[in-house]
């Protein structure tokens, strides 16, 4: 009885985990750019969408070419044939998945580099305005071009790389594990990046770029680098999303997605990756559970589209957090350096510890 109960809730649980992990990658990358780097990249959805389109286009074109599918790029028949081909050729499917990730990250990084051009020249709020509109322009182009993701109909048949696994439950759990692995790797990466000298440089540039420049740091390069890193990570989130929903539609990438991800960062705490995890967890839960399908499962029905409720709540959270706790749930901590860890382990006696082989002490205290 209990196992049956669990089994019926398993799909909801896995989809929650997958979305959480994808949003986490997106939120961590935005936190890198905005929280640490001070670049208000409010066109974040554009960089996510770049990865998503990349995965869709690459998969569809490659499969059409290898399998010799002649039914038009956007046709439903082609989509069925693609899914069939990918589920019967696991090696090719996985190779395409990996290629999409790599290429998506590269193209995302390139777009990020291109976007860093205005980022170096504009004042904060003007930059934010420009980037918000960049995010929407990408969508307008994609929804009107047949060649990218089939305009309004969307590109389908981008089968999951694991679709050779016949059992749907096992397959979705396996894919969830892959996505979670990516999220964990991203977390470790951004955490290490934040604690590295580069992370401290980022904060220095964010807090006072003139002072950083006076100390001989090349500010434009730092900003360019963080935009490349952040956008590449965002694109990876997009690639993972495309393979998860097995298709890509331009209108999914509304500016609202940026604001949802931004809320995760602001709510959790800017320049604090642990906070971002918390923020992402809360916002993903909101995003998932305020949906018509989940509410009908609970037996609640409303007259209007409940997704409206979701956006109202997002708006209220943004306003309340910025008004009463702009530092977020978990505020930004001091810069993590070996010296700081030493001072924590040794009750203010930093100098003494530094003399007696600080290396060993710091590694043991960090655990």
């Amino acid at each position, binding site marked *: 009885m209990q196992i049956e109960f669990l089994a019926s809730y398993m799909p909801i649980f896995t989809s929650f985990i997958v979305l959480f992990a994808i949003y986490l990658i997106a939120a961590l990358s935005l936190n890198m750019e905005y929280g640490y780097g001070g670049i*208000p990249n409010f066109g974040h959805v554009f960089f996510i969408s770049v990865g998503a389109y990349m995965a869709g286009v690459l998969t569809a074109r490659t499969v059409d070419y290898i399998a010799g599918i002649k039914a038009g790029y956007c046709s439903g028949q082609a989509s069925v044939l693609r899914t069939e081909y990918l589920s019967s050729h696991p090696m090719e499917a996985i190779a395409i998945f990996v290629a999409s990730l790599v290429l998506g990250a590269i193209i995302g990084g390139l777009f990020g580099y291109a976007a860093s051009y205005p980022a170096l020249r504009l004042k904060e709020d003007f930059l934010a305005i420009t980037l918000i*509109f*960049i995010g929407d322009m990408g969508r307008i182009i994609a929804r009107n071009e047949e060649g990218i993701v089939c305009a309004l109909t969307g590109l389908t048949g981008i089968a999951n790389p694991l679709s050779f696994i016949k059992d749907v439950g096992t397959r979705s759990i396996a894919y969830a594990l892959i996505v979670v692995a990516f999220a964990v790797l991203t977390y470790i990466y951004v955490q290490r990046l934040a604690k590295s000298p580069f992370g401290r440089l980022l904060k220095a540039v964010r807090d006072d770029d003139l002072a950083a420049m006076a100390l001989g740091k090349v500010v434009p390069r730092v900003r360019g680098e963080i935009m490349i890193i952040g956008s590449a990570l965002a694109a990876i989130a997009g690639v993972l999303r495309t393979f998860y929903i097995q298709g890509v539609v331009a209108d999914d990438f509304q500016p609202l997605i940026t*604001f949802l991800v931004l809320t995760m960062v602001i709510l959790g705490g800017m320049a604090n990756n642990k906070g971002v995890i918390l923020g992402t967890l809360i916002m993903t839960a909101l995003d998932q559970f305020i949906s018509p399908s989940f509410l009908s499962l609970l037996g609640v029905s409303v007259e209007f589209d409940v997704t409206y409720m979701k956006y109202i709540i997002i*708006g*209220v959270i*943004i306003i309340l957090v910025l*008004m009463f706790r702009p530092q977020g749930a978990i505020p930004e901590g001091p810069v993590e350096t070996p010296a700081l860890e030493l001072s924590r382990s040794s009750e203010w006696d930093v100098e003494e510890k530094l003399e007696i082989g600080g290396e060993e002490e710091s590694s043991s205290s960090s655990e």
Partner: protein
Amino acid sequence: MDLSIPLMNSLTLGSLYTLMALGLTMSFSVTKIANFAHAELVTIGGYVTALLVNWMGYGLGESLIAAFFASALLAVAMDEGVFKPMIKRGSKPLFLLVASIGIGLVVRYLLFIYADLNAVITVQAKANVQLIGRFGRAGITTIHLWVFPITIASVVLLHLMFHYTKPGKALRAMADNEDLARVSGVKIYTLRRLMWFIAGGITGVAGGLWSAYSVITPEIGWYALLRIFAASILGGLVSFWGTIAGGLIVGFAENFGITFMNTYFNVSTAYRPLISFVIIVIVLLLKPTGFAGFDFIGWLKEKMKGGGE
């Protein structure tokens, strides 16, 4: 190629964009908030007008006055409820921008719920529109008789207010240096309220006119926001005359640009927003001050010298 229709559209839309952008220019120059919830002032104005005309049978004039007050009160409420407390707590300008996005989401989706429940997701004010003349192939209707005089009157009144009345001068002083204005005895919070009231009201009237001109949805404000920002940024976000030029340039560039691209390069008219976007990017990157205090001769001289760093 007959240019009368794009010309008429450009003039009408240009005037509407100008009217919407005046409010944004005003609030940005005085408070330095890039207010994304400005979009919702347009939408509310549009909905109030459309619903009063369609449901209550009011004339367009009365409905526009109601739209003025509705949007004006919303603008004041935004400032009193969110922006002012945040500024008093020492928020950064960027946080104010993000908060304005939050306000925008709340208002827009509350309106969405209301519109969904009342089946008015798309609506147009059924104003009494009559053809009163022709300009080439384009018709001149009573809507145009509302749009042009209101735009011109707003601009003239704002100009008179900001240059010849005490509150207007004080507002300009605030825009220049708020602290200095304050120590000089300007009641900055009263004036702020006045400013938001007027800025919101004009924007609401523009939204109302839009609802008579074409079909609106709760997202109409977001749709217009790109053009509003383009127009304001062309005016450097501080200058009224620059904003008027900006609104007209955006209107003309959009209509002629897309007609031209569509005829000769077969570009879909759906790319219309890209023109405003390009305007924003080019102006911000090349001349962030827009037309405000544009000194053409000085600029040319600097270019001739090679613009040393």
